[in-house]
């Protein structure tokens, strides 16, 4: 497998250095802790919003640090939870009098590290809480989790809590918003290929030329079932039906619809999926109020996609509409 790589051990630090050099006015890079933070942070007048996870899911989360989104992100190595001291030091550096919220996708390793960092920082006097995101509908338990996994739907939780924080909400109010959005967000993904971690150099698992993995997690870990490749519209049906049934979403609902690329699928294919999902929802009386198509939470170079639905109300829609300035931009 051909990759742009020098020393695989330096893959994450070299990516973070590039990110910081490309955004000198808005981002600050602290190499000791893999930390990317807002250059002007922490802001004492707002709750600091922090998310960490393994690397390999970019743009999540280091590339969505900026005004209106995350105040900081502290990634671990590729697909590995950040070490405890990175999260602990990040929490201390981001301590604002209004508090710190640590957002965590529900994977066992991340959960243990972030809970520990929260408890340690709290014992030191930092006002800090954790919020776990678990939007995946495909499995109740998986290789690395206790309970449902947190996947691409975490984008909506981040956007909403960050907007609430920018508006001046206190920590309890920010958590209320985050829990609310998490409770109405549902995601399911599909892999067409495996992904290749730079330090491994070969695919993480075997997926036959004519096979797809339905309900895949963001590390390629297995989900619901393996199936033969099928037409795109049928794949949309395989993902959308369990999502709609799960909440459930029903006639008259207004939703945000996200088609998230897993890293190796062209945006043309993502829009093809979007069109079908949008029409199928309309047939069920579900209106798409906000649409998102692109790469939000990826698995390195995996070909595949996930669909996320969020049930909107006036509060959530208003928070999602607030402005944000992050490194991902097209002009």
């Amino acid at each position: 497998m051909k990759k742009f790589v020098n020393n695989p051990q330096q893959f994450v630090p070299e990516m973070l250095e590039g990110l910081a050099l490309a955004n000198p006015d808005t981002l600050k890079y602290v190499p000791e802790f893999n930390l990317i933070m807002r250059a002007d942070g922490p802001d004492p007048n707002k709750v600091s919003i922090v998310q960490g996870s393994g690397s390999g899911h970019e743009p999540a989360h280091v590339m969505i640090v900026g005004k209106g989104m995350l105040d900081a992100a502290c990634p671990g190595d590729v697909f590995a939870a950040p070490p405890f001291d990175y999260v602990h030091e990040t929490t201390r550096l981001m301590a604002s009098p209004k508090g710190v919220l640590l957002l965590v996708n529900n994977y066992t390793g991340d959960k243990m590290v972030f809970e520990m960092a929260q408890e340690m920082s709290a014992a030191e006097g930092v006002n800090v809480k954790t919020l776990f995101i678990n939007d995946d509908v495909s499995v109740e338990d998986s290789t690395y989790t206790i309970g449902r996994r947190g996947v691409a739907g975490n984008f909506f939780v981040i956007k909403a809590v960050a907007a609430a924080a920018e508006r001046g909400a206190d920590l309890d109010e920010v958590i209320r918003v985050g829990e609310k959005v998490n409770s109405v967000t549902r995601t399911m993904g599909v892999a067409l290929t495996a992904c290749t971690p730079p330090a491994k150099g070969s695919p993480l698992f075997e997926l036959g030329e004519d096979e797809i993995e339905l309900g895949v997690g963001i590390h390629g870990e297995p989900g619901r079932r393996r199936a033969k490749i099928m037409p795109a519209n049928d794949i949309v049906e395989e993902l959308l039906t369990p999502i709609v049934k799960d909440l459930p979403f029903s006639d008259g609902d207004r939703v945000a619809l996200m088609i998230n690329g897993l890293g190796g699928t062209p945006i043309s294919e993502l829009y093809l999926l979007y069109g079908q999902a949008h029409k199928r929802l309309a047939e069920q009386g579900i209106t798409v109020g906000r649409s998102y198509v692109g790469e939000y939470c990826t698995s390195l170079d995996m070909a595949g996609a996930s669909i996320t639905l969020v049930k909107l109300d006036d509060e959530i829609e208003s928070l999602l509409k607030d402005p944000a300035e992050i490194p991902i931009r097209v002009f």
Partner: protein
Amino acid sequence: MTATNLADVEYVVRIIAQTAVDKEKEFGDFDAVVGDGDLGYSLARGFEKVLADWDSYKRDDVSAFLQQIAVTITSRIGGSSGPLWGTAFLRASVTAKQFDEITGTAAVAMLRAATDGIKARGNSDLGDKTLLDALVPATDELERMITSGANAADSREAFAKTTRERAEATSELEAKRGRASYSGERSIGSPDAGALAVAIIIERIVAGWPER
């Protein structure tokens, strides 16, 4: 109100750290029977850092001292042992703030907080074949001795003896947590490595107490 009589606490932490380093191979061999054999290595890497940093720890009070130990071992011990052992020290640190002096009663409260922390962090309980199956009944016994008015030396001996007996008795249990749980019923017949390690550490603490 925070206890500042550090000498006994320093002694206990130093013996824990020294034992983890001295017994690296032995603890690893215990773990290799049903686990993945990394317990000795993990604990030694964490506690050798504690010994290396020993003189740099601030000693304002017992709580602050123990919290720095918690940070070091959580950062340095790999896998789930780091957060589990770190939580034990952190909860003991927070509990120490409630006492003017670290007495036997305070020690029981700190041990209780430590084991409760391990339960919460590891989502585990008695009977899961972990170090809890040795340390919790030993703490109960220590508390019983102190409450009944036994002298300190007898209380310590009873604490060590119960830890050892209950650690050996984990042989009868089936592992439900950690890597050892992957071997399921095959874990029956061998004691839990963490429980045995705790027994050895506590025996050393108690044996050296008069000359500490």
